[in-house]
């Protein structure tokens, strides 16, 4: 059986591949959404922080002999701390200003960080091996599924859903959401709002670094890996609706699938299809698929 000349079996494979790539989009756009939702900052450094996550994994292996599993734990914390420093020293001065200022600051930082890494490590990237436990793969009949890709999809789905649950369904999450609506009132209840915001930014940045560690064994550890991805991820966030947690997760996975199918039917357009969708969505629903109209 075929659909438009492509065997259905092959399409199942592409569906799965799309979901895997969508997992990266979801993880990154989730971090962006959390940061935007709670800090009102459009965090353009996100791509650079994703790249830093991958580099920290590489450094841990080279300098400390710590492998992938340690990196998964340590890299988000390390990069998250650099994010906290950035928030404390600079970003917090911008909350009262227009979004544009935050965007410019973070964009400038992204360029500086990427430039420094590129100067030091070149643009071809550095090798990072697959963890031994996840090497190899399964033959599913319709495709060969590398174990590592299966791990990526399961792990990122778990992280995404946990984050959603914490923010939308727990007491801590309700503080966070309340603090965005009315920080003065929440502060009056004895909650340290500035600290909460700082930690939230650190967490969002940590998510980016986590995605970077997940990506390291698949792609080269490359100073430009974030720059290539961040624009797509922003399109995902815009389509899903800025600030919507569930929206960014669902859109991330869905667009991964759309992009995957484009690679089968018209590969030349695979790097533009997401932007076409973004334009269409903005025409019909300017606040995004899951966003609340303001």
């Amino acid at each position, binding site marked *: 059986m075929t659909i438009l000349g492509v065997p259905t079996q092959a399409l199942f494979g592409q569906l799965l591949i799309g979901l895997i790539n969508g997992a990266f989009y979801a993880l990154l756009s989730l971090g962006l959404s959390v940061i935007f939702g709670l800090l009102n900052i459009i965090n353009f450094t996100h791509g650079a922080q994703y790249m830093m996550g991958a580099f920290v994994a590489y450094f841990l292996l080279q300098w400390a002999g710590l492998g992938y599993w340690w990196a998964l734990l340590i890299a988000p914390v390390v990069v998250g701390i650099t994010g906290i420093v950035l928030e404390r020293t600079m970003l917090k001065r911008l909350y009262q200003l227009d979004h544009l200022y935050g965007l410019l600051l973070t964009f400038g930082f992204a360029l500086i960080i990427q430039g420094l890494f590129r100067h030091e490590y070149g643009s*071809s990237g550095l090798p990072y091996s697959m963890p031994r436990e996840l090497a190899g793969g399964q033959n599913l009949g319709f495709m060969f599924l590398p174990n590592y890709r299966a791990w990526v999809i399961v792990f990122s789905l778990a992280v995404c859903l946990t984050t959603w649950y914490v923010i939308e369904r727990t007491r801590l999450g309700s503080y966070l959401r309340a603090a965005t609506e009315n920080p003065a009132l929440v502060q009056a209840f004895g909650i340290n709002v500035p600290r909460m915001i700082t930690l939230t930014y650190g967490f969002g940045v940590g998510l980016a670094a986590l995605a970077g560690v997940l990506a390291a064994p698949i792609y080269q550890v490359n100073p430009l890996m974030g720059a*290539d991805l961040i624009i797509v991820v922003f399109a995902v966030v815009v389509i899903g609706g800025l600030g919507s947690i569930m929206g960014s997760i669902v859109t991330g996975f869905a667009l991964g699938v759309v992009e995957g199918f484009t690679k089968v039917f018209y590969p030349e357009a695979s790097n533009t299809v997401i932007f076409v969708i973004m334009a269409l969505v903005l025409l019909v629903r300017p606040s995004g698929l899951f966003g609340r109209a303001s």
Partner: protein
Amino acid sequence: MTIARIVALIGVLALASSPARAQISDGVVKIGVLNDQSSLYADLAGQGSVVAARMAVEDYGAAAKGLKVEIVFADHQNKADVGSQLARQWYDAEKVDLILDVPNSGVALAVNQITRDKGKAFIVSSAASSDLTGKACSPNTIHWTYDTWALANGTGNAVVKTGGDTWFFMTADYAFGHALERDVEAVVLKNGGKVLGKVRHPLNTQDFSSFLLQAQASKAKIIGLANAGGDTTNAIKQGAEFGIVKGGQKFAGLLVFLTDVHALGLEKAQGLTFTETFYWDLNEKTRAFAKRFAERNRGIHPTMIHAGVYAGTLHYLKAVEALKSDEGAKVIAKMKELPTDDPLFGKGTIRVDGRKIHPAYLVEVKKPAESKYPWDYYKIQATIPAEQAFRPLDQGGCELVKK
């Protein structure tokens, strides 16, 4: 206006418009290295090409010979419009006499035309499209290092003759990828092979898994990578993940550079077979060059691109000195007339269509255990003699070739 003044004016005009007599324009030979300084081709060309050009100027002893040479560089970001604009600005406003390198065939073809219009000189090292000495050939351009025909001829032949007779192409979707795919396909078909499928991916693609699945489904014995730089390394790395080689298929990296092998690591790159026209570890002279080059280029050893920039600059300066002029088309003509001789490519010639002729090498990447010292990556499997390495003069469709 008196007659005398009119005569004087005509005299001045005549002097001004008389063909430039043998001289260096504005007293300086200005060389512009135009390439990718920041993206996927920045390691294989990038700053390394600037270093190579500087070394050539120093080694030639330009200053001692009373030749004032200045080198500038810029990043074309792999965009033909950016590259064209930079080239025009250099030629028109900044008095650049020669543009060097220019990776990305799309950009190089644009600069090729601009150079011709402005009557300047262009020496190509990075760009691969064989059209530069074929239907787009120009009296102002020399294609130094390699081209898609040479890669197809070297790698394509070797692969088909060792049993790789069914192919699936993964092609970078721009001028270079198309030219490479076309030239390799011709070699495959000529040797009785078959092409089972092809996919065109955007330049600078991160994830190849979807294309790898299509390649697997095609059941082709050989997956031909008609791409370069980061695209090639990502495809090979992810191919290992998807068990391409374990499943009995093989990659043919149609254009692989030393820096790509370095980035992949020997574990993943071992066994790849491809064509190069220069390897740093060929002989004493190349090793001496590589040592000096690496010291000035963050330890990165020279690719064939860097070698081509060095040798091309050296030969260009020779021609300028012989002519005592830096006028574009004349220098290029002189370069074609003079035999070439440099420490990296040895003795060679430049054909009327602009093609530099030298031997090519079929290399295989060593296993990790075979590599004895840093950057010890290749085994030379075969040397393709200069007269067989490039497309025969009469088959390119170049208008400069007399029928």
